[in-house]
């Protein structure tokens, strides 16, 4: 239904991608396929990443299957914690070996390594286990260095590019589309009335039109922060396209466009959003929010879905406020964070 044609983790092979141009007609039309460089995916994991992935799998398997043995080996105590560590390692390993966007999985390894280093440091303070704990600590430190190197290499390589005409750094380019059973004109009209946007853009609090071209945006940022910025419209073709860019360096610098393409045989409209943006908190921040599902890719995917829902049904399906039995902590947290309905 919705398609995502780029992943920021594809960074390293994206050097050809140069200018922010919205989408040129014919460049990425409904049938034109993907544009080259900007949308290229990771070809294959490099041997370092692949190695780390398999390392995760092996360590994870050992820790899950034989937690006591791994505990003995590393001078740690709790087989239960070891099993959890193993599960974490397996998850990261599967992520690295199967997903096209490696960066968040490598960052998750770095976070895990930090935990392990802390645990081993504590073990080092205990008598009788020092020798093994020290060896394990040295090994983990080495792996941590490799993880950190691989993660920053992947994330760092796409930093520093700037879309022309945008102040602030815009590092990441992404595109997503969704099919809506309404005409391009209807879709355009709804989107062009900016006061409608908070209805389907979850983090948006308000949009205030300042004059014909400029608007003031207020959005909820991560961790109860608030983002505000001013944007101007750079292209406005009724029934076809809207493009914008931010004017001030607010930490939310972005430039993008939304195109409304008539789908063939009366199948409504393909709504196509492309966006250059600059992640808050830099590369590490981007990796972390992506793990939590609050990254721009997921947000645009969900916002587009909600746009479709509002257009087609007049409402957004929800379960918020429905009865249930007692929720576990996990259930409460996932619903509170809006991860699951």
């Amino acid at each position, binding site marked *: 239904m919705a398609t995502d044609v780029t992943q920021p983790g594809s960074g390293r092979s994206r050097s050809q991608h140069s200018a922010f141009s919205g989408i040129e007609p014919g460049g990425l039309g409904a049938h034109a396929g993907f544009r080259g460089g900007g949308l290229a995916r990771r070809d294959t994991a490099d041997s370092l990443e692949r190695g780390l992935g398999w390392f995760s799998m092996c360590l994870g398997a050992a820790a899950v299957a034989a937690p006591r043995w791994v505990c003995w080996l590393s001078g740690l105590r709790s087989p239960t914690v070891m099993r959890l560590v193993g599960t974490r390692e397996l998850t990261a390993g599967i992520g690295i070996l199967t997903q096209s966007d490696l960066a968040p999985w490598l960052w998750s390894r770095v976070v895990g390594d930090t935990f392990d280093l802390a645990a081993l440091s504590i073990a080092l303070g205990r008598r009788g286990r020092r020798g093994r704990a020290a060896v394990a600590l040295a090994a983990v430190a080495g792996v941590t260095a490799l993880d950190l190197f691989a993660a920053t290499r992947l994330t760092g390589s796409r930093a520093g590019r700037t879309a022309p005409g945008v102040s602030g750094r815009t590092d990441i380019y992404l595109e997503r589309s969704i099919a809506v059973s309404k005409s391009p004109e209807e879709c355009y009209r709804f989107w062009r009335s900016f006061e409608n946007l908070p209805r389907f853009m979850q983090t948006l609090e308000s949009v205030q039109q300042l004059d014909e071209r400029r608007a003031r945006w207020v959005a909820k940022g991560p961790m109860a922060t608030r983002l505000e910025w001013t944007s101007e419209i750079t292209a406005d073709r009724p029934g076809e396209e809207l493009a914008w860019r931010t004017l001030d360096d607010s930490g939310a610098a972005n430039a993008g466009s939304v195109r409304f393409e008539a789908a063939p045989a009366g199948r409504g409209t393909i709504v196509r959003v492309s966006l250059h943006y600059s992640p808050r908190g830099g590369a590490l921040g981007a990796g972390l929010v992506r793990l939590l599902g609050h990254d721009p890719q997921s947000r645009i995917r969900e916002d587009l*879905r909600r746009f*479709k829902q509002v257009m*087609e049904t007049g409402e957004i399906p929800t379960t*918020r406020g429905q009865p249930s039995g007692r929720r*576990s902590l*996990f259930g409460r947290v996932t619903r509170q964070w809006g991860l699951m309905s």
Partner: protein
Amino acid sequence: MKANVWYGKEQLKVESVPDPKILNPRDAIVRITSTAICGSDLHIYDGYIPGMLPGDILGHEFMGEVVEVGPEVRNLKIGDRVVNPFPIACGACFFCQQSLHSLCENSNPNAWLAEKLWGHSPAGLFGYSHLLGGFAGGQAQYARIPFADVGPIKVPEDLSDEQVLFLSDVFPTGYMAAEQCNIRPGDTVAVWGCGPVGLFAIKSARLLGAERVIAIDRFPARLRKASQWADAETLNYEQVDVREALEVMTGGRGPDACIDAVGMEGHAHGAFGTYDKLKQALWLESDRPPALRQALMACRNGGTVSIPGVYGGFVDKIPFGAVVNKALTVRSGQTHVQRYLRPLLELIEKGSIDPGFVVTHRLALEEAPRAYRMFRDKEDSCIKVVLQPWADVPTVEPEKVHETGRILH
């Protein structure tokens, strides 16, 4: 209100929860008069459905009386008696417009989760995991129905609850399974599994003109029902070699169509049965597919294998070479219930079918935990349980409940 709440594998509790409220303009609230336990609820009970959270209210086969409607629901009014389809469908998206309601693009608030597991998300369902929306189910005294202007069908007062209740799921599900077989005069249809869906598939295959229907199960009571109700020939797979029997019965050609009404918790004997149980226990495959394997092998060249049985994730050792080299057509899907409501209600009104036939037990909602166990273990020849949300808990001995609760046909 009282509701049947899931807290984990084999852990159900009927307890007091808040009443549902209208949350969206197209919602309605019904006061439930009858609600049933579906065979697919047993997959949840046994812990095989991913995406369940403790505290979820179960149940997706229910009917009742409309007690509240949202401002955008114009076709229903308070007091209407309705049966509710188990998939939630908006009626406006690409798939709803083609009457593929169980594929509605707009009704699953957790679509992204389902996309991770299956590539794309189907419709939201009542009481069937957070992968499919996390909607509170209908084994309760009240339920909220989203898109109430599309789903529920009004039913005439002169039909009893049990005559129309199964329009919510098992009747259309069995019917769609048979319809997908594209039955032509002279066809033989073999049906694996004689639970409610299998029985409705058997009966529907007959209604759609099948010459012979062969019912496969291991419980004599269920096989008896199949032969009584739909004049099916029966095979008990614990007593005969099903493949061999089907060959003999069809002149060595195989059934024209095969229906797998078993799904992910199939039973098999011998090495393959042990193999599946082991793999499922180790989480190396999520579903056990012995019935599907056998159906694919048994089906005649160029035939159709129709799968109403629920599979959730990954299965192993599927003879896909048989699909290719025998030019089989494989059809499946959650049921597009909305599409079948009206035509099947007409069949009931005409007297072509009395769906109440499948009911074996009628119990109070409070007894849901016991009813699930009984249904799962086929105790007391249990085939279908109808729960009554407003009945008082019977104070009689359990044995007596069986006697008074059972409907004899």
